[in-house]
Structures are given as C-alpha cells and as structure tokens.
C-alpha cells in the first residue's frame, strides 16, 4: 500500500479506560491509555500476563466497548459508530491474527480466507485471491482441507493468509505464536513480517515475548493497565 502517508497516525487513542464489575468491586483493566500509531509502523505492545494487552487490542479493533475514552481508526472515532458500522470498518481496514487461530471449522482453508472478501463484497475474485495467498503462505496442497485436518502451524498460516486477504491498512496480531512450538513460531513470525512488508501494512503486535517485540520498530509497555513511559 503505497498511498499510506507515513506521518499520518492511522490509529490513536485518548484516555482509553476499561473497567469491569466483579461482584462488589470494580476492576480497572486499562486506565487512561493515550497512544498513537503512524501508518507503516510496526508497534509491539508488551507486558506481563494480565497487564491488559489483549483488552487493549480488542478495544483498538472495536471488538469491545471502553468504559471511557476514544479510539480513532483511520481518522474515524469508532465508538461513535454502531456495531454494524464498526464491523464494516473492520472489514475494510483491519486484519487479525489470533493466538488460537480462530478459523471457522465449517469452512475449508480456501473458504476461510475467502470469508472477509465475501463479507466486504469488494472483490469478485475472492477464490483466486484466497488461493494465491494460501500458495504464498505455503499451503498450496492444503486448499480444501478443514481446520481440523491442519496442524497448528498450518492453521496459523491460514489465519495469516485470511488477515491479508482484504489488503488491510492495519494488522492486529494477538500473541500469534502463543499456541505454537518455537521453531514453528519463528517461521510464522517471519512469514507475517514478510507479508506485512509486501503489503505495506501497519502492524500492532501484542506479545509477552521481548525477543519478538524487538523485531518491531517501536515498543509500548503495559503494566497494571497503564502505559509505562
């Protein structure tokens, strides 16, 4: 994506706060998060387990609602939108890679990759694009396999292919190697960064792995729901 203006923030948050009620007490998961991600950047959000990383990622994608604060995605204040409009926005500009792959078990590898394309109805060649991407991630021989018939590494490749299917502006990855052995993990990360480069995508990567975070151009540290300067 060459039209991305490098100095333009594709994502910024203001005083983002998330609290949940647990019985009588109120638990603050995230507090006053202000951050900015510019187009073309690769940013790692790191922190210990329970520091609020995944919650933050969910809020950035509009998958959950904050208690307070704002998220601007591609210059749109996403929490002023309704859920359907947020979904449409996600379909247009976001790609996801999850720790537990989150493939639809009912669909074959190709169909899983086609899914976001068909949902956004932006491309008539969904199947061709899906095939090409799957070939790119090394699954040319697994096109018609169901997730159940694939190994963990293969499933995550399908998930990566799916994430890039719509040519997203921003890729959000949540512990993408968390469910994989280290050798496979390294292959997957290499693949993800390669594709990121090829597609000129902005990357926000959530991880607890310091080594992995260092592959990104910038690190944002979270502790107890707050940004650590």
């Amino acid at each position: 994506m060459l039209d991305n203006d490098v100095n333009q923030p594709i994502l910024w948050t203001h005083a983002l706060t998330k609290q949940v009620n647990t019985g009588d007490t109120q638990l603050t998961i995230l507090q006053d998060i202000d951050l900015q991600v510019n187009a073309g950047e690769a940013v790692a959000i790191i922190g210990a387990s329970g520091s609020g990383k995944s919650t933050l990622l969910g809020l950035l994608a509009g998958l959950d609602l904050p208690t307070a604060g704002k998220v601007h995605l591609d210059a749109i204040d996403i929490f002023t939108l309704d859920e359907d409009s947020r979904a449409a926005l996600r379909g247009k500009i976001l790609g996801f890679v999850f720790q537990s792959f989150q493939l639809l078990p009912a669909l074959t590898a190709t169909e899983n990759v086609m899914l976001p394309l068909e949902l956004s109805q932006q491309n008539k060649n969904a199947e061709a694009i899906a095939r090409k991407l799957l070939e790119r991630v090394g699954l040319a021989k697994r096109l018609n396999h169901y997730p159940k018939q694939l190994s963990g590494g293969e499933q995550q490749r399908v998930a990566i292919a799916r994430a890039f299917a719509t040519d997203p502006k921003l890729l959000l990855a949540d512990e993408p190697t968390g469910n994989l052995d280290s050798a496979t993990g390294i292959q997957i990360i290499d693949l993800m960064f390669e594709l990121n480069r090829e597609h000129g995508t902005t990357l926000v990567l959530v991880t607890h792995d310091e080594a992995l975070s260092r592959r990104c151009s910038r690190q944002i540290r979270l502790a107890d729901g707050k940004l650590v300067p």
Partner: protein
Amino acid sequence: MNHLKLSFRMLRRDWRAGELNVLVLALIIAVSGMTTVGFFAERVELALTRESNQLLGADLLVISSRPLPDTYADEASRLGLTISSLTKFPSMISDGENNLLTEIKAVTEGYPLRGRIYLASRSSMSRAEQPEITIADTIPQPGTIWVDEKVMTRLDLKANDVVDVGAAQLTVTELVVREPDHSVGFINMGARAMINASDLLETDLIQEGSRVSYQLLVAGEVKAVQQFRDWIKPQLTKAQRVEGIRDARPEIKAALERAEKFLSLAALASVVLAAAAIALAVRRFTQRHLDGCAVMRSLGASQQQLFHLYWYYFTALGVIASAIGCLIGFAAQQILTHWLIGIVDTALPWPSWLPALQGLLVGLVLLVGFALPPVLNLRSVPALRVLRRDIGLSNTHSLAGYLLGLVTLSLLFIWKAQDLKLGLYIVTGFVSAIIIFGCLGWLLIKVLSGLRHQAGGAWRYGLASIYRRAISSVLQAVALGLGLMALLVLTLIQNDLIDDWHASLPPNAPNHFLVNIQVDQVQSLQEFFQQYEIEPPPMYPMVKGRLVKINGKNVSPKSYKDDLHAERHIRREFNLTWADELSSDNQIVQGAWWNTGTHEAELSIEEGIAKTIRVKLGDELTYDIAGSHFTAKITSVRKVDWDTFKANFFVVVPPGLLDNYPASFVTSFYVPPAEISMIHELVRTFPSILVVDVAMVINQVQQMIQQVSQAIEFVFLFTLLGGFAVLYAAIAATQDERIYEAAIFRTLGARREQLSRAWAAEFAILGGLAGLFASAGASALAYVISKHVLHFDYTFNPWIWVVGTLTGMIGVLVAGLLGTRSALSSPPLLTLRKIG
C-alpha cells in the same frame, strides 16, 4: 471421593449457571405437556362417559325379565352408589273411547340418575305453538301419569284428563319431551308413558308371563361402578344382563373409543417430541462437559467414578425436572378445565394421580434413555483433551446410545397406547422414519454440500455449516422431522376424524325412522312426502326371518349355550333386505358383491354377526320366514359403519329372491324441528306406521362430537408446545458454536445482516429438510393409523407436502433467527477470549 455429594454439587452449580436450561426446559415441557394431556384426557373421558350416560339414565343398568334380587341393590348401596329402579312393560292406555298400545315405565324416586326428564310446560300442552321446555325435578306423583307426544296426539288428551292404565285411573299431568332411555332403537318405539312405581300394583298389569323388563339403575364414582360391575358379572343369571353406555349404543361406543385413542395418540406425540428435544439438548450438555471430564480424567478419575458421578447427577436432575413438570401439568390442566367448563356441560370429575405418576416415570425414562447414554460416553473422553482441545468423543458411541433410548421409548409407547397394535404401529412408524430420515438426510446433506461451491454467499456458509456438523445436522433434521411428523399426523388424523364424524352425522342426518310400512302404503306415503315438498326418501324392504340352519344343520339358541350374545341373535328374528347395489357406508371385506340381475341364491352378511354366529364365506344359511324356508349361500362379508344413523342390515340378498315373502318397508328422513307438525300429520294419516324419533339421540351425539372435537383441539395445543421445545432445543444445541462463529464473522467485518443471512440459509435448509421428512412420514403414518387403528378411510392430501415443508422451513427459520439474536449481539472479544 464422595460421588453423591460431588454430583449434587455439580448439579447445583450447573443449574445455577444456566448450563442445564435447555435440558431442564425440554424435560419440563415434555413432562408437563404429557401430564396435562394425561390429566385432561382422563377428566374429559370421564366427563364424556358420564355425559353419554345421560342417554342411559344411569352409569350402569342391570336388566332382567324377572324381578331382580334385593342383594343387587344392597351391594350397590354398600359400594356407595346411588340406585333407582324402573319397570317397563307394554300396555294399553285408554281414554274411554280409544286404546293405544304404549310402553309404560314405572319409576322410583331418583330416576333418572344421569340426564334429565324434559317436560313441555303445562300451558303449551295444548301444543298450539313451540312448547316451553322445563326440567322435571321429581318423578310422576302417585295417581298421575306423564305421557309423550304420541299418546297426547293419538288419544287427543289435554292436561288433567284421566286415562285408564290397566285397573288404575291416572291423571295426565305432564307432557314428556325428552327422557333418558337406553332402548332408543327400532324395537320399542311406540308411544311412551311414565308412572310412579307405587301405582304399579294398582294397575294389576304385571302377571305371570307378562313381557316385563325390570331394571336396576346404578350411578356413582367410576371406580365403584366398575367394582359393582365386576361383582355382579358372575352372579348374573341367563335372564339378566348388565349394560353400560358402551354396550347399549354402538355409535357412541365407536365415537368414544376413537376419541380415547386419539387423545392417547396426542399424549404419545408429546412423548416423541420430548425424546427428540432431550436428544438434542443433551448434545450441548456433553459438549460443555468435555473439558471438565478431561480434567477429572487427567487428575486420575476412573471411568467408573465418572459413571457414578453422572448417574447420580442425572437421576437427581430427572426427578427434580419431572416433578416440576408434573406440577405445571396439573396447574395447566386445572386452568384448561376451568376454561372448558363452559364447553363441557357437566362439571369435570376429579382426575386420579396416575397421570402424574406416569409423567414422573416418563420423564425419568426419557432422561435415562436419551440423555444418559451419550453423557455416560463422557467417561471415555481422552485425558489428552486437556492439552489438545480438538480431541473429542467419537460419534459412534452416542449413536449406539440412542438405541437404548429407542427401546425404552418403544416400551413406553406400547404402555401408553394401551393398545398393542396402535403402539406397534407407532413404534414401527417412528423407527423406520428415523432410519429412513437418517440415511436420506445424510445423503442429501452430502449432495447439497457438493453444490455449495456453485451457491452464492449466504447459501454457501449455510451449507458449509450444515456439512461441517453433518452428524449433528442429520440428528437435528431427524429430530425436527419427527417432531413435525408427530404434529402433522395429529393434524391430519384430527381433521379427518372430526370431518368423518361430522360427515357421518351431518346437520340433516335422518332424525326420524318409519317402520312397518306395508307394500300398499308405499305409494301414498311417497305422495304424502311430495305434499310437504320433501324428496321421498328411499324405502328399504324388510323381511323378518329366523335363522334355522347353517349348511343344512339345524341351529337353535341351544347351539350357542356358551355365548349369550350369539344366543340372543338366534332367538331373535333377523331383518333381511334386498338391494341391487352396495350401500355407500358398507364395504366388502371378503368375497364379492353380486352382479346386477343375478338370480342365484346368494347373500351378503355383516362381518360382526358372521363372527358371532360363526359362519364364513361359502356357508349356506336357511331362514324360516313366516313358516317357509329360504336358503342362500354367503358370497360376501361386509363391514358396516354403525356410527351412521342410516338404516343398515345384517343380511342383504339380491332383489327378486324374497318377492314371495311378506315384506314391510323401512325408511329414514330428516325433518327440521320447525316442521315437526308434519310428523303429527303423518301419525294421523298412517296410524299403523311406527314413527321412531331419534332426533334427541342425534342431538346428543352431535353435541358430544362437538365437545370431543374441541377437547382434541385443546390437547393438540399442548402437543404443539412440545414441538416448540424441540425447536428450542435444536436451536440451543448449536448456540455455542454460533456465538463463536458470530464473533469471528464480526471480527472479520461482517454486518449483522450478513451473518443473519448465512444463518437463515442454514435454518431454511435444515427446516426444509425436516419438513420434507415430516410430510412423507406423516402421510404414511396417518394412512396406517387411520386405516388400521381408527378405522376410517384416509384421503391423501398433496397439500401436506407443501404445508409440511414450508412449516418446517419457516418454523425453523423464524425460531432459529429469534433464538440466535443474543449470539449476534454478544461482543466478539468476550467470546473469542472465552473460547480461545
């Protein structure tokens, strides 16, 4: 590990967490639906029997040609039954100038025990206009006589006229419009009068050899009546017999029995629905407990320990849920009864506790049969699942598990149907339906999913989802199909049953019979009808003959000493008729009807009487008709629909054969109540013709049919509720997967509408499949049940395919979309984190 304690703790936790909602709800709806039907059917049946007993005047009659011993009445009183008695005999009534042969009924206090005597008010006894009707609250006072319309007309009586009955002089005080009596039939339908039994002696009419019928009337609690019946049966002499309404009136017997069978069918349908709902609900349960079991296994729990754990768990669950179901069933039935009091005239008798017990038992059996087997498979979940969540259970286990369910369900059916034949038909029907639906469903899903690449967006995802869950999809389609099939069968039979009843007794069903029409009166009678602008009804010839020989061998009442019923038939004269064509409500079951114009000596006999007197196709019967013998061979056996009020005959011969024998004619026709004066005129013009008025019986039967129809429709509502339980369980069974699916779809940018469309496609396919199965199964099963169990002709209805398929499709679609609304709105992140 204390299993009992642990399983109760697990149960409590799951119950509170809402994990058991679907299963418990399915069970509660099933048990409450069934107990409601059970309680209600029992009460309606009791009420209907009691109501039809109004025709009899009692719950039970003991009838004898000699005075009855006091011990009978004593025993009835001892059992807490109310009693009354009557003495019936033919006698002349005279107003001084004219005599009229009348059937006198001498009654004692309390008569009738069931039903009422309706009187025309005194002012209208001059019968100038439509009489005002009152209900008698007593019996005729000593010294008085109540007469019917015929006595009134023929003797031209007024109120307070005095008539002679034997040696007694009695004052006419009331005109009886309607009275209960069991012998509303051909035989004794002359004029009728009622007197007080205390005047009997004074009449001096009862002499040695008089033709008298002594009757003891008994009424009370159903159980006590049955006890009395059981007690008296072995005491009866040959001259005595016991009659309940079912013995007395075949058309009521047939209607009641059909209604009972239908109601038990409705109850059975709710059992099928319950089984299907539970089978569906338990899938979700096992899915949700896989992890827990894997953890317990990894922590060292043995298979046996897990077995005990779930056994206790489910027994407790079954008892609690079934008990709640029973309570709800009882309450629902109370409300229904309350609501229905306006429809069923009489107060409904209190039901027994049996339906509750049945409900409890059925709930447990269903749970053990359909829920426990797949749940017990949980014990074999590999402990490795704690590490690899994709490892689950093999499906073969649970398929075998359902076998136990099917066996228990079959036993339940046969028990609930209380009719081995009906039970077996249903079991065979449903088992073959399951096998055929299952195989066909599997095949169809395979074929359809092959087409998914050609299909557009929503359809592709719908088909993909169905295919991915192929086994569970087949199971859902089969369960939904069975549920819908049960509902369709009931609808089909219900409509046919009610239509058939109404058709057999249309509003213009003949309500008057004319008997004893002589050959020379036929012409003038037809002219009489024309005068009143009534289409002359067909006249059936009738020749009276006594059966004297079978295949050349003499028969007499003594030949049937062991069979009172047969003996009575031989003693009596048969009415023989002739006809060229088979009557429309008759059906040949053996042999063939004769060719027009035949002169062969052949006859057609009704199948029931043929069985009673033990004759078969090809036998030769000889009748003594007015001293000369007539012999003919049985060339056909007929089934006669006795619940119509048309004139029907046991024995029919071809025209011409009986020409040389003395014949009279019989006919039946409808007279609207407003034109009853025509009957008065007919009686005056043709004094020798016997007019039999069956309007009252017809009214009562029509009313009863109306009530039964309504009861059936109410009961059907509950079966429908069971259908919703299945639907709910089917939707809920895949709810978890859907919530997950929704989260991914929404994360990837799907709008609600896109997701709804994909699901709608899936539900429509599933529902359409179920509807198609249901239509096929219902047509076949309704045919078999109508023909072989309820005994009426079933008409195939092509619309059922359209209605069934569309109902399935739309029903599942609507319920599915409503049921998955929450899955659409749950925040994606929450779901993904819960599952991931």
